[in-house]
């Protein structure tokens, strides 16, 4: 990789962080187009996609979106693999079915996720932060777990920036093990939150929260007032197994919290930015329940699956993301998640199932299930 390319990438990263901090004069559109041109120059696959679309990269809408499947089939990166500092992997049933998002720097990822996470999840300067996931080992391969670790480091003064397990903390922030959720650990974290008069921020996947509720067997587990439970995942492959509004209600009852304190997060391995519901009390992000609001550096458009053009407002379409955080991978990504624009954000409506098999052929998703 040429030094000039690295320099250009570094400059774009700096510009994106400045944009996120509100310290840039460059507009979203200008920055997105600069990143798209940088990627077209340095990634052959994207160049081919641009050529196929006949795009001259003159406006954000003309940036061809890279299908998220591409991350499973090939490397989506400007830089060579020797420069990777992390490789986030998508969930999948086998190594072959997993997508990889390789980053050569986590600075921008951390800055963006911390900035918007604070807006959506923090009502005070600091919180007691715990995650319902096993303690990660380096290198972290899940972007979600990476983000959780960043939140623990940034939002919880009990943990230093370098060592989230250090200091004289009386509790462990990683609360999921072989036996399931660590209820005793959660109790200790609650006590600590009460003692220090900080809210508790519980970070989790929806599935892990289901497991926690099962372990509680209907018993209430009151969290300190103004605590927030962030949950993510569910509306994708396992949507049939998980009713998110039901889960939210059960969590609110069980934790004795206002339902608005149960905040949904939407993120995906292929993106460096996340969306949140803006329902919690005292936080600066505001929005109705069920609406996931993007940060200013992420634009989501619902597009029709056939022509990839924006659908009428209020109509369901595939989610097309333009994420300024994806400086070194794919600035525009199209997923199979169905969304509808509403109130400055999007509603998640499940996953485009793919064509229903008309003969005895297999739907593509079914073919992959159980592979490996």
């Amino acid at each position: 990789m040429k030094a000039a390319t690295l320099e250009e990438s570094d400059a774009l990263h700096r510009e994106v962080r400045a944009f996120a901090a509100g310290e840039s004069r460059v507009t979203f559109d200008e920055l997105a187009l600069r990143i798209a041109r940088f990627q077209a120059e340095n990634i052959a696959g994207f160049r081919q996609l641009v050529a196929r679309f006949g795009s001259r990269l003159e406006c954000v809408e003309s940036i061809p979106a890279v299908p998220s499947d591409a991350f499973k089939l090939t490397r989506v990166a400007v830089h060579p693999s020797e420069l990777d500092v992390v490789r986030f992997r998508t969930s999948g049933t086998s190594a072959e079915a997993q997508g990889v998002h390789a980053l050569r720097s986590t600075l921008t990822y951390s800055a963006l996720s911390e900035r918007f996470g604070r807006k959506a999840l923090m009502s005070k300067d600091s919180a007691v932060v715990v995650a319902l996931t096993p303690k990660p080992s380096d290198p972290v391969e899940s972007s979600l777990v990476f983000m959780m670790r960043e939140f623990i480091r940034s939002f919880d003064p009990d943990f230093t920036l370098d060592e989230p397990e250090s200091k004289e903390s009386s509790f462990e922030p990683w609360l999921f093990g072989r036996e399931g959720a660590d209820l005793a650990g959660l109790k200790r974290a609650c006590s600590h939150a009460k003692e220090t008069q900080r809210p508790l921020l519980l970070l989790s996947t929806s599935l892990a929260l289901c497991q926690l509720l099962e372990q509680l067997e209907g018993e209430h587990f009151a969290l300190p007032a103004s605590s927030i439970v962030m949950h993510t995942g569910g509306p994708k492959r396992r949507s049939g197994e998980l009713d998110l509004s039901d889960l939210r209600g059960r969590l609110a009852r069980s934790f004795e919290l206002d339902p608005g304190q149960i905040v949904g997060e939407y993120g995906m391995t292929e993106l460096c930015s996340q969306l949140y519901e803006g329902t919690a009390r005292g936080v600066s992000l505001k929005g109705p329940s069920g609406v996931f609001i993007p940060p200013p550096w992420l634009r989501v458009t619902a597009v029709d699956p056939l022509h990839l053009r924006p659908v009428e407002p209020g109509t369901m379409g595939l989610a097309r993301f333009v994420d300024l955080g994806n400086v070194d991978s794919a600035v525009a990504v199209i997923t199979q998640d169905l969304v509808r624009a509403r109130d400055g954000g999007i509603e998640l409506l499940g996953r485009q199932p793919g064509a229903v098999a008309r003969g005895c052929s297999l739907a593509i998703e079914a073919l992959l299930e159980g592979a490996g």
Partner: protein
Amino acid sequence: MTPQERVRALIAAAREVAEKDSSVGKRVRARWLQTTGLSPEGIELALDNSLEISPSEAEIEQLIASVPTSKRALVLLSANVFVGAHRALALALAGSEHVVVRVSRRDPVLAAALFEGCPGLFEIDSDLTPARGDVFWAYGRKETLRAVQTGLPGGVQFLGHGPGAGAALLELTGASAEEMQSQAQGLVLDTVLFEQRGCLSPRVVLVTGSTEEVTCFAACVVAELTSLGKRVPRGELSPDEQADLVRFCDTLTYVGKVFDTEPGIVALSESASLSALAPVGRAIHIQHVEEPILPLARIGHVLTSVGFFGSETLRSQLSSALPKVRITALGKMQRPPFDGPVDLRQR
């Protein structure tokens, strides 16, 4: 009637259906245009290649030997590829004198025509009531099969056949230009038949060989798909199927190289991942790999058939890795011998 006579009677009725100018032949073709999503030429291609109307005596004997016998057999048909009902009925008739069939509401055409062609050979009923001692043949989606099996009374033998997919594996090292062309021709025929909606249709194509050999093969596939496309226009694709093709095309444009053909898509990549399989509608993703057996073995649970070209050594590795998969020549994937169920995964 003996099993042989029952199967032969069914084949005779199928022969009449295949006859373009017979009254039943004309009638079913008109209906199939509405139910199959195939073009008229696509229907003829499927009838010519995939409706078994002249099996050998040995195949019929093998077919009879492959099925369990019972006094009564019940058959639950699905909207399979449109010729599928023929083999399904033959299997039931091979094992039982008394066969009761529930046809698919979506595509009842062939079963009804065969019923008309050989009155009394089997019954059609909208309600199957299985009882101890019956053999129950069921075709359909995995969920349907599970539900049917769960609801069966004790003493009923259940034989379920769910959806599946085919793959192609070609070892191109040292292949001549003629071999490349004939293999491409075979692969394209297997692909175009039923527009890849069949459980034997190739959805994965793995090739080994040098870059030049693979590129040359891809060019042959493009030429053959274009040529056959002119003679056999693609049928109608649903909006979802079209959307899958768009996504496939964009993904493969990023990952490898896409050649547009009229109609259809051929893509060439170096990816060994089977996580973005070709959708239906004449999409061929040629994946240039070093080691083809392991990726195929990983999806072995859904594979019904592998169209193969290559050395005996590789064939033997393939059959060891996939013992329940039919390994056939390319161009024959959609016409397996009439020797039992097409799908051997239940064996």
